[in-house]
């Protein structure tokens, strides 16, 4: 029978000494009890048994005691076995006196055997425990590294490192110090927080050059392990709690190295991500600039040409011609104004400050409103409105949706073949009302449909992209609805978007403001 030695980690941190004591006491008790029981069992047969046989039987309690409690318990077992043997089985019985010289020899051999057994059993136990501890270390290191392998953001990774270290080594508190602009600062911590005094132990001292080249050391109660990776130190790990065994300390150092590598990797990844984001923002800015410059320059070209013509006195335009040029200047100035509005909206969108004011409105009203904005332009005269009979009202921000319609109509006007009709239709579809703007222009090639809403330069022959459609998409999506470019339309392009239908009887008052982040 072998008692399983409890692993140190199974007990609460700091309970290692108590556990050892308990184990020794248990071994000693088992030794004494077994010696007592065996003596009681053998006593009736004493006359029939030789002195040596009884001695052999009494080796058992010693072996048990040593197996359970180690050498100390084994020695207690030796004393118990010796006493029981001498008193109960070596004549004269009942005393510690040893009678015959032959019995002296038996007793001496008995004690020698007991001592050897104790020693051997204890050795075995120690070796087994050592192996178990080794296995445990390997397992723990494996588990810890497992945590580090996963590709996680820096913050999450730091949290994991401190939590696993605290659990695995039974520390009261663990934290990671990271270099910042103002020196070392706590990046993450688990368990008991560290006070300033404990932290300052790890920080470089005032007046000495700041460096992260810390040495593994123990000051008072805090253990400091440097986290060093390939590119140099990345931080320091601070822990407080029970003093570690040398093997555990080595394990912690190994783990710290792995953690350092993982932290470095996470940091590099974050850097890469940041530079990628910057690059993207740069590209976005380029695209925006190019779109803005194209969209602004187009109406400006007409205004400039018309104005320069009006000012050149030598040409005979006639009243009609001059009037037409003036009208052009007016419509193009309005177009410029709408573009500037779009730009401002775009800025508000990217600043995340767009507020949605939902109201219950009819599609007719929205379209009429949009046509007012386009009054005087060629587009306004070409719109046909087709609204289903008894169509429900919609819940939408009228200002934003007007802008959506204006942009879609303007886009249709730009691309429809000279003077073609533009159709605006609305019909019920489930819980939404779908609005479509169809032109009879050349349409958009299949492969370019997805890019139409992007804020990109008019690439090659795409020609539809620009600020206007980007705004359409952003505004419709701010309502939680969708916008699309219909596929398979025979003639021209058909842009559609959905709006929430409003079915409740009048009286319910929505109009609540929602902030869109």
């Amino acid at each position: 029978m072998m008692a399983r030695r409890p692993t140190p980690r199974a007990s609460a941190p700091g309970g290692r000494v108590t556990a050892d004591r308990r184990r020794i006491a248990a071994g000693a008790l088992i030794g004494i009890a077994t010696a007592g029981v065996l003596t009681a069992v053998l006593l009736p047969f004493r006359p029939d048994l030789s002195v040596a046989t009884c001695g052999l039987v009494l080796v058992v309690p010693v072996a048990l005691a040593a197996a359970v409690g180690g050498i100390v318990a084994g020695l207690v077992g030796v004393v118990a076995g010796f006493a029981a043997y001498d008193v109960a089985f070596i004549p004269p019985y009942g005393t510690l006196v040893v009678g015959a010289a032959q019995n002296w020899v038996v007793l001496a051999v008995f004690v020698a055997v007991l001592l050897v057994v104790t020693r051997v059993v204890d050795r075995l136990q120690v070796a087994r425990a050592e192996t178990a501890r080794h296995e445990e270390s390997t397992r723990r290191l494996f588990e810890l590294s497992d945590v580090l392998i996963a590709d996680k953001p820096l913050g999450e990774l730091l949290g994991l490192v401190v939590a696993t270290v605290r659990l695995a080594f039974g520390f009261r508190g663990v934290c990671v110090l990271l270099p910042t602009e103002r020196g070392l600062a706590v990046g993450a911590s688990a368990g008991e927080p560290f006070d300033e005094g404990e932290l300052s132990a790890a920080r470089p001292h005032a007046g000495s050059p700041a460096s992260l080249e810390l040495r593994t050391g123990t000051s008072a109660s805090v253990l400091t392990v440097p986290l060093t990776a390939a590119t140099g130190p990345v931080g320091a790990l601070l822990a407080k709690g029970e003093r570690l065994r040398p093997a555990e300390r080595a394990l912690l150092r190994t783990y710290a190295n792995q953690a350092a590598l993982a932290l470095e990797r996470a940091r590099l990844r974050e850097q890469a991500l940041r530079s990628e984001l910057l690059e993207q923002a740069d590209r976005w800015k380029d695209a925006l600039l190019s779109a803005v410059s194209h969209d602004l320059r187009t109406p400006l070209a007409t205004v400039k040409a018309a104005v320069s013509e009006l000012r050149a006195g030598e040409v005979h335009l006639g009243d009609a011609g001059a009037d037409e040029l003036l009208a052009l200047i007016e419509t193009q100035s309005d177009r410029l104004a709408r573009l500037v509005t779009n730009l401002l909206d775009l800025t508000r969108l990217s600043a995340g400050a767009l507020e949605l004011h939902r109201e219950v409105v009819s599609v007719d009203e929205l379209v009429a409103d949009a046509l007012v904005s386009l009054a005087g332009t060629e587009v306004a005269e070409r719109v046909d409105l087709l609204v289903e009979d008894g169509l429900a009202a919609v819940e939408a921000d009228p200002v934003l949706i007007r802008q959506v319609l204006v942009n879609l109509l303007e886009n249709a006007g730009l691309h429809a073949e000279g003077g073609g009709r533009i159709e605006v239709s609305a019909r019920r579809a489930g819980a939404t009302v779908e609005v479509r703007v169809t032109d009879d222009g050349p349409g958009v090639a299949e492969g370019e449909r997805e890019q139409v809403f992007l804020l990109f330069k008019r690439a090659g022959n795409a020609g539809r992209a620009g600020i206007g459609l980007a705004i359409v998409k952003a505004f419709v999506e701010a309502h939680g609805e969708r916008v699309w470019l219909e596929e398979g339309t025979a003639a021209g392009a058909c842009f559609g978007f959905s709006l929430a239908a409003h079915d409740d009887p009048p009286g319910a008052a929505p109009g609540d403001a929602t902030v869109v982040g």
Partner: protein
Amino acid sequence: MARILVVDDDAALQKALSIALTARGHEVTGARRGEQGVVEVALRQPDVVVLDLGLPDLPGIEVCRRIRAFSEVPVVVLSAAGDERAKVEALDGGADDYVTKPFGMAELEARLRVALRHRRPAGDGPSTVLAVGPLTVDLVHHEATCGDRPLELTGREFDLLAFLARHAGKVCTHQMILSEVWGPGYQEEAHYLRVYAHRLRRKLGPAGGQLRTHPGIGYQLTGE
């Protein structure tokens, strides 16, 4: 009075140009798409084409190439400022001149005038004596005069002047000039050109202004 074809997708600009150019006595037709523009050139044979580079269906340069495939009609390109590469591509592709948006009508008209003046008369064999304003270039005798004053030019300077005179009124890109005058392999050596243009201008004296520099694009020899 000339027949002008305006290829631009923007209805407003189309209309403004039409009013202004008509008032100046020209006959204006319009096209909103590149393909339509090419067809119009073939059908109506205009005297000059005003072509926007940012058309929705075809890149302007492609329109230019398609026109050049069958017609020598002068093409004046409209383009956005800062889009130097598009201009150079269009000029290399056969355009004669460019105007940057936004532009004044007087400027556009002046460019159209230059383009119209240097329109190659159909049927004539290549002339051996070129006249560009007060400047004459005798290709056979390798002699150039400015007014009555003979110009003393080195071989390369003469070649450069002769090339520009042959394409008078047209903006010639650096690449065009270098590969024609210096030969293939010199296309990237724009600084040669700067040096020679400078010398040429000095030797032309008061007529030096006829040699116009288009920064980042090329040179143009005009009659004015």
